[in-house]
């Protein structure tokens, strides 16, 4: 089942890319089947450890295995990705080959969460870049080449140290293979750990994104297709927090300790910094890009706290932000369809013509700025409870973003929907968009009101991580 779930999107995507006449319905079916598989996998999860584990020797002489399996966070993110892909191919109006690329990218993302072998993890992590780049290249805006350079350089240059660190971890640590279980049993220590961790960190900070390695993100979003599909997929690609949690910290706990102070500071500062300057963002995609940086700053702050609460918060916020962040990008895609522009100014007063879209936007906005009861809050709260134990001042700094978020989000929203009504009438949501709205709203409410559904599976993971640092809870 897990193999089918993992590879089906890639096969469907390839097929669709070659035979685009299969059309959007084909993509939707593929995404729906993927989501169904995800739900089945989640429902069948026992609650402890890595489920659905399977391993086959791939290059046994160097210790590489094709090993996959899912733990609590893997399942959460797997579900989030499957859901978002379905929403994206359902609602975004893009060429069919674009959808095909999105499906291919889905396999890469799922692989990142499922991989139980470090080399395979790295392979998925890098391979996912290809469809992301192709989307930008084929369907991006006029300045996409520059955006591609920046994106590719940050990710590729960032990945090289990680590759070196991967080998360092295995050979200096003395593990038998690249399997997760082997590597965790042989953590690095001392100076080597600090350096190897830094190698991981560079690559993963780019994909968190963690200040100041977020600098590639604004142009990436600005230049991607206005439908928001590529941006949604890009949001799913923010796997840094996950990979730090899953690989970098457990493999090199001493290395993490070495950098913890700096990392906490960067995370907290980035959370506030990005939220603050989002206020000056001239267009919605830039705004959402910085909003995402800010939220990931909060998530990273939770993770770097190194305790149970912070870890649970970080992982939950990551999953939630994949959903609301992506939905927000798809939403501005719907706006673009009506206005032909994503600029914040001038005021448009769309609400008169599109009351339903207005309500949807308000809802997503509130989910994004962490309104309690919606998906962003449980993660933020837990991250706060974790981080406060480690550094109250940095927590204070990071959570000033709560105020800044209200300012940037409501101001931009006011310009788009409120104030002077726009003269030219535009249609309100159609059926397809209502479907998107209903599912998104339902999921964000569920995540906000009943976080227990997932946090019961995250709690043991958080405790395990805390145990690495002697934390009791």
């Amino acid at each position, binding site marked *: 089942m897990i193999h089918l779930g993992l590879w089906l999107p890639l096969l469907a995507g390839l097929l669709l890319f070659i035979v685009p006449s299969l059309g959007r319905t084909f993509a939707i079916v593929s995404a729906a089947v993927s989501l169904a598989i995800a739900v089945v996998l989640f429902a069948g999860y026992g609650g402890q450890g890595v489920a659905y584990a399977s391993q086959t020797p791939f290059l046994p002489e160097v210790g590489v295995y094709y090993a996959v399996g899912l733990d609590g966070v893997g399942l959460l993110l797997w579900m989030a990705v499957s859901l978002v892909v379905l929403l994206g191919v359902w609602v975004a109006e893009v060429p069919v080959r674009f959808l095909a690329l999105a499906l291919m990218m889905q396999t890469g993302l799922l692989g990142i969460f499922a991989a139980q072998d470090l080399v395979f993890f790295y392979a998925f992590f890098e391979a996912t870049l290809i469809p992301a780049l192709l989307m930008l290249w084929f369907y991006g805006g006029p300045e996409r080449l520059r955006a591609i350079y920046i994106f590719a350089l940050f990710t590729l240059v960032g990945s090289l140290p990680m590759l070196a660190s991967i080998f360092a971890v295995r050979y200096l640590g003395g593990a038998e293979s690249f399997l997760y279980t082997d590597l965790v049993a042989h953590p690095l220590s001392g100076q080597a750990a600090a350096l190897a961790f830094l190698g991981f960190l560079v690559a993963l900070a780019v994909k968190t994104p963690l200040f100041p390695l977020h600098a590639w993100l604004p142009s990436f979003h600005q230049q991607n297709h206005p439908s928001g599909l590529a941006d949604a997929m890009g949001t799913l690609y923010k796997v840094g927090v996950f990979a730090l949690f899953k690989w970098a910290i457990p493999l090199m706990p001493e290395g993490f300790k070495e950098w913890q102070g700096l990392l906490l500071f960067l995370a907290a500062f980035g959370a506030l910094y990005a939220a603050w300057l989002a206020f*000056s963002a001239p267009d919605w995609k830039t705004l959402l890009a910085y909003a995402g940086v800010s939220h990931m700053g909060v998530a990273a702050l939770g993770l770097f706290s190194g305790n149970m609460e912070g870890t649970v918060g970080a992982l939950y916020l990551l999953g939630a932000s994949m959903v609301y962040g992506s939905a927000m990008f798809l939403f501005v895609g719907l706006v673009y369809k009506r206005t032909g522009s994503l600029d914040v100014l001038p005021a448009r007063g769309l609400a008169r013509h599109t009351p339903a879209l207005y309500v949807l936007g308000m809802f997503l906005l509130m989910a994004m700025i962490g309104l309690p009861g919606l998906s962003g809050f449980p993660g933020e709260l837990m991250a706060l409870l974790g981080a406060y134990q480690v550094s109250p001042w940095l927590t204070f700094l990071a959570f000033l973003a709560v105020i800044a978020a209200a300012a940037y989000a409501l101001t931009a929203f006011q310009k788009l929907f409120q104030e002077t009504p726009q003269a030219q009438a535009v249609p309100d949501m159609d059926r397809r968009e209502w479907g998107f709205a209903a599912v998104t709203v339902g999921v964000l409410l569920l995540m906000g009101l009943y976080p227990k559904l997932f946090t019961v599976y995250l709690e043991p993971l958080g405790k395990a991580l805390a145990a690495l640092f002697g934390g009791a809870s």
Partner: protein
Amino acid sequence: MQETFLLPLIIALPLLGFVLLGLFGKRLGEPAAGWLASLLVLGSFLLGLVLLLQGGARWALPDWLPGIPFSLHLDNLSGVMLMVVTGVGFLIHVWAIGYMHGDPGYSRFFSYFNLFIAAMLVLILGDSLPVVFIGWEGVGLASYLLIGFWYHERINVDSARKAFIVNRIGDLGFLLAMGLLWSMFGTLSISELVEKVEAGGYSFTTLTLAGFFLLVGAMGKSAQVPLMVWLPDAMAGPTPVSALIHAATMVTAGVYLLVRHAFMLHDDAYLSGLIVLIGLLTAFYGALCSLGQWDIKRIVAYTTLSQLGFMFVAVGVGAYWVAIFHIVTHAFFKALMFMTSGSVIHALGGEQDVRKMGGMRKYLPATHLHGLIATFASGGLVPLAGFWSKDAILAYSFEYGPWLWFLMLLASVLAALYSIRWYVLVFWGEYRGKEHPHESPAVMLWPNHILMVGAIGVGFMGLPYVIDYKNFIEPFLTKAIGEFPHEKLPVFTEWVLILTSALVAIAALWWGFRFFQQKMPAWYERFQAAALQGFYVDALYNALLVNPAKGLAELLFGGDKGILAGFAGLGNLMGGLGSLLARLETGALRFYLAGFVLALVLLVGWGVLR
């Protein structure tokens, strides 16, 4: 205390109304949408009453988040608040059926209104602080939606946004309080915190800090100095909103939160002193500003500020039950005052400037009676509701220190003055406008009749001990708040205080009644000019905080591009990739400069915070 699912049902009723009206309200139309919303609130009221009479209730979903339950708790304290919110809330709902008549957003209005009630009930009933916080921000959202209800006017949405942002400053305090309490005690359930605080074994200073964080939260929600600036602007919303949210219920949530945490405050002289100070400042600031307003709703809004200041003083001096008692009486007379204002606005076709009112006693006899009672209750005339709760605050203030009693007496003189000024300008003299005023329909009069009875009578449940009637509310509330020992004043002193405050109020009302009918003397005009602008606090905040914050956002935005340029420069240095990265260089001096500033900020911040 029973465990029952009926407790969440109290919240679910208005929530259901929010969803139903939001989706199908347009089809229901007028007035069905309004009645549905009202009856659901009435349902919550009745259900709450039944559970309260049965001795309270609890309900919990364990491990909603790791170690944090989703728990609700109906005790006497939350019960009283529940009665006020749903009872007065129901009346305002009904009144709004008439007031919102003909508005294109009729059903949307009632949908938001029900959302507010639901959120407020979560706030009140929550036992676990994160649950309280859901309600806390929920009412903020409802308030935001309703202030900006007529969203095509920029001024309305600007006011709504301001309210939300200022409230979020308070919310940050609430969040930090949760962080600190969790790290101290490992729980966020109020009922468990009570035990842990009693058990001791923690640093007292740390607990003071936690209390301070909560206080910041309360100050935002209850519009205390210096976070009061959003409340006057919130009057941009429809009048029922001002009555329900910005007078009777939501703004008292901060007071409720503090009273809920009385166990953290009562031993803490510093924190209590700070609360007294904030309350005093707010009481005077609100009162003085009210005396200079021309907009009928802004007059009343500032009077609310002043009364909220009274409540804070009550909390600060340790008179926790009195603070709640004042919430109850205030809910009646202030809602009545707002709805009377609304009826006048309604009668004059939307006019809000009191300079174009006057003489309404002839045109609107019933509304005039409401206004008169509201004025007397708010001005503290014996024996109306406002007198008893205010008097209790004064008595406790005297125990705290005769100087505080004296200041509070002054503040209540001002309260009498602003009440009577409102009354004189609206109802007395000759009509100064050109409309044809007409009395409100029955659906608007009846809620006011009931509120009027309340504004006269609810004070009698909290008579001072020297009068030989049973004080019903003190023992009822202290059962939930906790008994904190305090020395009762001697009978003679108490009587002197009561008589003084009664006579002073009568004198002030009478003097004000004469004074505000005359042409204003020059000194008053000068005072009024400053008071009208809220003593320029908004301008000050804009100059000191808002504009610098915006400027910094601009600067950071430029600086962020500088980071990219910085990486390009790094690439150049490293050579190999340089030629490729050189394309990124913009060469703009501004970016480098901003990047430099940013780096500096980072270094300093790192140094300070590590």
